């Protein structure tokens, strides 16, 4: 579907989001900036994971580990006095790529439940590694002062600048994921998800393709982790816990597994739900758990699909 740049709703959406900080500062509502920044950071991770889940058909229970890797890259650099942002992010994405290459190469040798279990095992390994490193806070993690430094005019201390940097990263992620899924690589990936045996019969080295998707998704997750560390100025093994991986999966499902923006919408919905329930009761995990059960049972195709269904019904009523 070809739409000219000016009429593409996606572009307008990004324009709105770009202007938002200015408007927010004007009316003194900057709290929402960090909130939306957090949503966008998880949106990046969810988009990365969906490359593997929605388009590749691989259920990974361990992608939060890559988020943690990215976060620790930044945190450890700061801990040792390295403040150069290029080093931070280069290291984060580089180590993210390497770890997802190694982990993916091993996990993808198995299929089905074994694959799922292997991803979980590796995530747990990294989690316990983080917990065991007592000099970096172990279980409690550690916080640090300052942010990644890029240029003298790019001060991440300013909430608005941080917001714009994250927005730019999100835009980049959407662009890359969108392009790769519509490209030849995306077609191959969808083919493998649909019928791996047939894909092999026509000559495709399916292992290589799945691995490439796995590494790409790992890199986006580690980017997300690096941004998260900057946002919270805190790093802990909890970023890598299995429940965080499950939350990422939930975000994707909530928003819609087969759409491009679904994971971002899902991340927003999940975090909004978490926050608002948290304000209502300290026991927010009970209704949250219940909400998860109900949504997956009854609104399986996610919010985007639900919204589309509503739009379709509305259009039908009018005509």
């Amino acid at each position, binding site marked *: 579907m070809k739409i000219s740049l000016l009429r593409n709703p996606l572009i307008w959406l990004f324009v709105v989001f770009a202007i938002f900080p200015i408007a927010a500062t004007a009316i003194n509502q900057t709290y929402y900036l960090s909130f939306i920044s957090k949503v966008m950071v998880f949106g990046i991770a969810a988009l990365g994971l969906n490359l593997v889940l929605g388009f590749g058909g691989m259920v990974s229970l361990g992608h939060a580990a890559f988020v943690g890797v990215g976060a620790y890259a930044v945190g450890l650099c700061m801990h040792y006095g390295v403040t150069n942002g290029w080093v931070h992010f280069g290291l984060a994405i580089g180590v993210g790529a390497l770890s997802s290459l190694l982990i993916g190469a091993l996990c993808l040798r198995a299929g089905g439940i074994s694959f799922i279990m292997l991803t979980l095992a590796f995530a747990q390994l990294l989690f316990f590694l983080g917990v065991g490193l007592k000099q970096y806070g172990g279980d409690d993690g550690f916080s640090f002062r300052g942010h990644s430094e890029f240029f003298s005019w790019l001060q991440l201390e300013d909430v608005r600048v941080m917001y714009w940097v994250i927005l730019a990263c999100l835009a980049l992620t959407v662009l890359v994921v969108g392009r790769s899924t519509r*490209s*030849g*690589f995306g077609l*191959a990936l969808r083919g493998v*998800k649909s019928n791996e045996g*047939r894909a092999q019969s*026509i000559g495709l080295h399916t292992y290589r393709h799945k691995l490439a998707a796995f590494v790409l998704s790992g890199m986006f997750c580690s980017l997300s982790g690096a941004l998260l560390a900057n946002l919270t100025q805190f790093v802990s093994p909890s970023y890598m816990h299995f429940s965080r991986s499950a939350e990422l999966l939930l975000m994707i499902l909530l928003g819609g597994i087969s759409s491009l923006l679904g994971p971002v919408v899902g991340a927003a919905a999940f975090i909004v739900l978490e926050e608002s329930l948290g304000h209502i009761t300290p026991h927010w995990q009970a209704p949250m758990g219940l909400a998860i059960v109900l949504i997956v049972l009854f609104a399986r195709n996610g919010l985007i699909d639900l919204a589309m269904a509503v739009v379709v019904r509305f259009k039908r009523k009018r005509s």
Partner: protein
Amino acid sequence: MTTSLLLVRGLYKRYGGLVVTNNVDLDVASGEVHALIGPNGAGKTTLLGQLTGNLPNDAGKIYFDGCDITGLPTHSRARLGLGRSFQITSIFHELTVLENVMFAVQVQSGHSFRFWRPVEDSQKLVTPAMALLDRVGLADHASLTAANLSHGQHRQLEIAIALACKPKLLLLDEPMAGMGIEDSARLTKMLQAMKGSVAMLLVEHDMTAVMALADRISVLVYGQRVVTGTPAEIRAHPEVRKAYLGDGGLSS
């Protein structure tokens, strides 16, 4: 023998105590249509599986186009020109009909690591894919999701995908299975048109098609190749009659 595209020697496979492929020798020449017939359970699909690499061999050698492919994985054999269509339709249900064939064309051309360009813009993929769809009669359904086609149309798509790989040898596992008379006749005509340019190893029960297409026929009974010959020779062969009519089982 010098023009043998496929050379199979002593292929053997057992599942526990049951021998399913029993020392099979087989050869297919370039451009030949070699049919493989036999009663149900004779091990024809197993044999095809061993040839494509989906099933491991216990013993024996397979040579394709001069190369020893015995140890190669499925996708490598496909890249060498060994194509296959499946008995139980194996297509990409979630993709559109056009995408199904474009995928095969893309893999054949070796360009599956392109990350930027949208696939529908690539004329190098769309044009040959549409041509193939035209050949099997599915051009009008190009933008439909594959899952929504009828069974017969699935079988046609199955063939289109197999052809898109530009195979030198096409292993056809009961392509007429479940097809009506019209569709069978149409497919037979299509395969006849391909004779000479693509070699085929055809597993079929539909005797009309077999007799119309085959240059040579091999008979497989209980995993053993019993006899090979021209259609006329096979029709008259006493062993074949015995195997099909089943009077008293099989000698040897």
